[in-house]
């Protein structure tokens, strides 16, 4: 603990943070928040269209984290558990939109065999690309490519068919490849001027 009474989350063991939060100690809760909020903000941004929307998800998810931390049994890493809560909260947010804009099967898109590299594109641009995807594609791509769920699990989570999940993913990947290629050609033409 620092002189001004604030807890430095990076000086504490994870278990101490958990124990403090379980007691409802606000200073430990803030320490836990400060420890994970930046990483979790990225998770929330991946599932939302705007920063404000991501912050709403982050806020609601952290309230759930503090309310549910008594049930955390340590079977997984704390970060994994918090990430899962973020994703579930984000899905709840997006389900409302998915109800308005239901996912439909799209034709299988031929994925170009050419190897596409994204190494020259920073993660902020990649994030923008993901955010620009249609709702269904954005969620399915996040769940499949980044979180590592399979299509069967995604279908169960979102209440869609496995085929719909696959087609949404294909479409998302195709759209992303097009965006990456477009971005790459822009770099080829103008170099880093855009940045």
């Amino acid at each position, binding site marked *: 603990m620092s002189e*001004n*009474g604030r807890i430095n989350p990076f000086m504490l063991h994870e278990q101490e943070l958990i124990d403090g939060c379980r007691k409802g100690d*606000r*200073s430990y*809760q*803030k320490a836990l*928040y400060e420890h994970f*909020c*930046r*990483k979790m*903000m*990225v998770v929330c*941004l*991946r599932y939302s269209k705007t920063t404000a929307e*991501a*912050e709403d998800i*982050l*806020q*609601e998810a*952290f*309230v759930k984290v*503090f*309310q549910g931390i008594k049930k955390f049994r340590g079977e997984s890493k704390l970060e994994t558990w918090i990430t899962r809560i973020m994703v579930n909260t984000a899905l709840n947010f997006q389900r409302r939109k998915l109800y308005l804009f239901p996912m439909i099967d799209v034709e299988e898109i031929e*994925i170009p*065999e050419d*190897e*596409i*590299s*994204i*190494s020259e*594109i920073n*993660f902020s641009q*990649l*994030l923008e690309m993901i955010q620009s995807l249609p709702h269904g594609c954005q969620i399915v791509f996040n769940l*499949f*490519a*980044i979180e*590592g769920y399979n299509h069967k699990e995604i279908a169960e989570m979102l209440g869609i068919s496995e085929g719909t999940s696959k087609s949404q993913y294909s479409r998302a*990947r195709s759209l992303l*490849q097009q965006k990456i290629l477009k971005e790459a050609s822009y770099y080829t033409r103008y170099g880093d001027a855009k940045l």
Partner: protein
Amino acid sequence: METQNFDDQFKSAFKGSEIGPSDEVWTNIELGLEKAESERMKRKLLFFKTLAAASVIFALSVAGAGFYFMKGYNAPTSIANVMNEKEQSNSIGIDSENSPKDFQTKEKNVNAVVPSQMKEDLPRDSQTLSKNDNIAQRNAEILKPQNRDLNSVSSEIQNFSTSLSGHENPNNTSLVETRKGNTVQAKSSDNFDERAGTRKENVFAFTYDDGLAEKLIGSRKVAIDIKPTQNKNEQVVEVDPVQAMMARLDQREKELLQDGNERNKNNGEDLWTSVGFAAGSFNPVGPSVSPNTTNQLIASNTAIAKQEAKASGTAYSVGVNLGKRLANRWILQGGVNYLAQASEYETGAAFQNSTFSSFRPASINEMDELAQADAMATNTRAVTTAPYTVNNNLQFLSLPLQAGYLVVDKKFGLQLNAGVATDLFLHNTKSTDTQGMDKIDQGIGESSPYRSINFSGLAGTEFSYKFSQRYRLSLNPGVRYPFNSVYKSHLGVQSVPLTFDVGLRFRYIFQ
């Protein structure tokens, strides 16, 4: 392979990436947590309210049902009911002409003969009745049950002597009663027919085994004994059938009352002591801040004072009580309880101490004091701060005195309580988790904004279970409502906390 690479590249790109959210997010999370906490408290409060309301409704229902049935039990004393039964019996009886209604309505004066063979069963007193005794009393004595092991009514009728030994008056309806043990047989004589030399009798049997029963056995014609033998051993008393019935019911009521008293004596629950605790929540009813000339600072900081006045919270009490049974169902109980009320509220003001080295939460009485000090001092000592939470803890010594009515007084007990409590303020503390803020501890007296003595109304129910001869455990949901604001009147701050709590008491019964 290409697909994996594409996904892995994305995964790697986001791995370890960080973006800071705005500062508002944490503020909103704190608000969200407090909102969730208050909702949880509200749910708890709702639970206690529902429990208290349900128990009161239950108690009232039981009391109402008990009253109804007690009243219903007395209903047989209504002669009309008995008469109706008799009429119904008669309507399907052997001879409808000789209905018992006739002998009830024609004449009030009827005669009864107690045969000598039955005399031994009669109480001694009934054989030595003086002429001055009223009829009802005498009848009660005559009809007092002596022997619970009786032959059935039918056997009584079979053994009933055909000889009529009562006093006869052909112009009057006469009632001849013969008793043996718990059964009284009665014959009403009417329709006297001198020329035919016969008369008709309606025969009744009264039994007292487990309750009152009166049956019309039938009617028959018997020969008139022109010269009835006057047996010197027979005792003749006059019996008014209505009064006889009333007397019989009175007697039965007395017996029941006596049984009840004996049962209560056996229970031995006349004096007891109990220890217990109670927990619940309180909500101020109509909190308000009304400015007057002496509390300008409070008036100018109405919002701050209001936050404190309208704060709801939890209440608990522990204490000992003494109870005494005053009457069959009425009890009086009192005791000494330690009562604590804790609440949380948000404020945006603080006071600096004299050396300006630390701060403490704003207090209503300090606002009042500062309002009376010079303006400069006021400006230098009261400061506005970012909102922070204050924990306010009040402690009282409460002396309750309650009257109780025992709706159910058995192994399982149900009791309704109401009374008043004298609440003596002990002290209060105001603390906060905010760093650099001191704790306030205010005792009784001028430095405190709270009344030293207040009175509260108490109402509640007590569900109890007697699990041994000397011990009883009870659950006590109840409400407490102070008659006055907990704050001193000159401060102009009104806050009357309505408390719902549920207590658990362990009672020791003195022998």
